[in-house]
């Protein structure tokens, strides 16, 4: 049994090295200027699609009362595919593309810290994209975010618990990815796409048919996005009027704790299966 302080240092070292490696893989294919443009163009284009949809139809265009909540929801959702699919993608990338996953397992590293570390680079890029998108909203589209009006305690709590929650979702998906072949590319995107639809990111949750609304209310990301809306805008969507800020944050933190057990358990189970079936160095050529 490894002493706990040694295990802590090993975890920290694995995390640090994985974060550095993730950053190199993410960014060193282009010079910094091209990389910066690449990192911003995609999320900004996604936000502008919403802007034009509102501009063409909604009475008052982007001044419609719905728009700020939708815009903030869409901006924060940039984190979801970046962290969630990013961590699970590490399994595919290391196993299929670089052929390195088996070496990660033979090295003295913490696999969880390694996976989360690899997700950090994507989260960092996503953070810049979120900030720039919110700045665009505030400066050019009259989204009412004022520094003095931000609930800092709520935003910090929501961001920290949200990042942990998304990392755990990523580890859960990573476990699924470990034992699947040829479906890998679809899994992360399908989950992120499903969450985009079900969590009321770009429309009020009550627009969904009632049975889908129930599913949306069962997902912690719905509450996380609502908490961020309230922290930044001072108000969220009417669907959660009955919940206080503390209750929203409580749901996010509580579900994160439950998710932690589920994610770690699923990953360990998948890992055992992958080792037993020799899937750690699987090459499906897809």
């Amino acid at each position: 049994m490894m002493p706990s302080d040694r295990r802590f240092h090993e975890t920290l070292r694995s995390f640090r090295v994985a974060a550095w490696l993730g950053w190199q893989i993410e960014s060193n294919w282009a010079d910094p200027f091209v990389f910066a443009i690449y990192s911003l163009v995609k999320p900004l284009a996604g936000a502008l699609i919403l802007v034009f949809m509102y501009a063409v139809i909604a009475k008052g265009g982007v001044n419609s009362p719905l728009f700020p909540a939708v815009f903030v929801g869409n901006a924060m959702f940039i984190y979801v595919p970046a962290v969630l699919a990013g961590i699970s993608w590490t399994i595919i990338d290391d196993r299929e593309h670089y052929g390195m996953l088996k070496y990660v397992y033979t090295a003295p590293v913490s696999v969880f810290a390694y996976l989360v570390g690899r997700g950090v680079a994507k989260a960092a890029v996503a953070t810049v994209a979120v900030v720039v998108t919110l700045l665009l909203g505030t400066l050019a589209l009259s989204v009412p975010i004022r520094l003095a009006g931000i609930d800092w305690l709520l935003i910090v709590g929501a961001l920290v618990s949200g990042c942990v929650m998304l990392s755990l979702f990523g580890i859960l998906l990573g476990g699924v990815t470990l034992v699947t072949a040829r479906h890998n590319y679809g899994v992360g995107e399908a989950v992120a796409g499903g969450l985009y639809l079900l969590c009321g990111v770009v429309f009020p949750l009550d627009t969904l048919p009632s049975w889908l609304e129930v599913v949306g209310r069962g997902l912690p990301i719905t509450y996380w996005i609502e908490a961020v809306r309230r922290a930044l805008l001072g108000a969220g969507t009417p669907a959660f009027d009955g919940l206080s800020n503390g209750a929203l944050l409580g749901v996010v933190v509580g579900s994160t704790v439950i998710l932690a057990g589920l994610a770690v358990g699923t990953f360990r189970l998948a890992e055992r299966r992958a080792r037993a079936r020799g899937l750690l160095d699987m090459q499906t050529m897809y």
Partner: protein
Amino acid sequence: MFWRTVCGRAYPRVIGSQREKSWIFFEILLPLLQVTAYVFIYRAIEAPPEFLGFVVLGGAMSAYWLNVLWSMASQLYWEKETGNLELYIVAPTSRMAILLGMALGGMFQTTLRAAAIVTIGSLLFRVPMTVTNVPVLLGVFLTTLVALYGLGMMLSSLFLLFGREAWHFSNLLQEPVSLVSGFYFPVRALGQVIAAAASALPITLGLDAMRQLLFPSMMESLRFLSAEVELGILTGSAVVFLLLAHRALAHFEKLARREGRLTVRGQ
């Protein structure tokens, strides 16, 4: 030999890709999720029902754009990574035939997915479509595909020089093209200048023309150019892109051979 190569390269896409049922599921599901989310946005802001049709049609055409990006433009990069590219180069056949086979197979493969998206989307959201002129609609659709896959063949040659940036470049061209081509709203909303610039992409004019032919009354005030003019431009684009693809393939293959990039992996 040319046509045997075309058939040989199209085969895995026409037959092979149908064997993995989960792929069909994901390829229909992913665009449908996006389409459904955008449909609910329009419902939330009480848009006329025709706008739901704009989104469904845009979602179906986005399947073609994604196929062009990931299975045409990036294809030779994947082939390089998996070690097939050198086999293509040493095979005694035309590389143009390989690209054409990829394009025809991709068109077939994607048409099944796009048809499913239109059918499911239209039934699910009760989209009120009125087909005013079937021959012109078919003409616009097919010409758009020829021009689009011609562009894909041209990009495919260009990507011969790329390493990992091929993946990033394809990734980069998803949302921005959805925006400027008006996948989810009429392109005219972007203004005449941006819409004119975006017309360089065949899918922009193809979508606008098809929307005019399927939702004539709603598009009267929202169209960019008339469907006939757009069909004319698309025909010209198809010829230009195919010619450029032929020239680009010869040029970039020569360049890639000279710079030793044809067999470099994990770059």
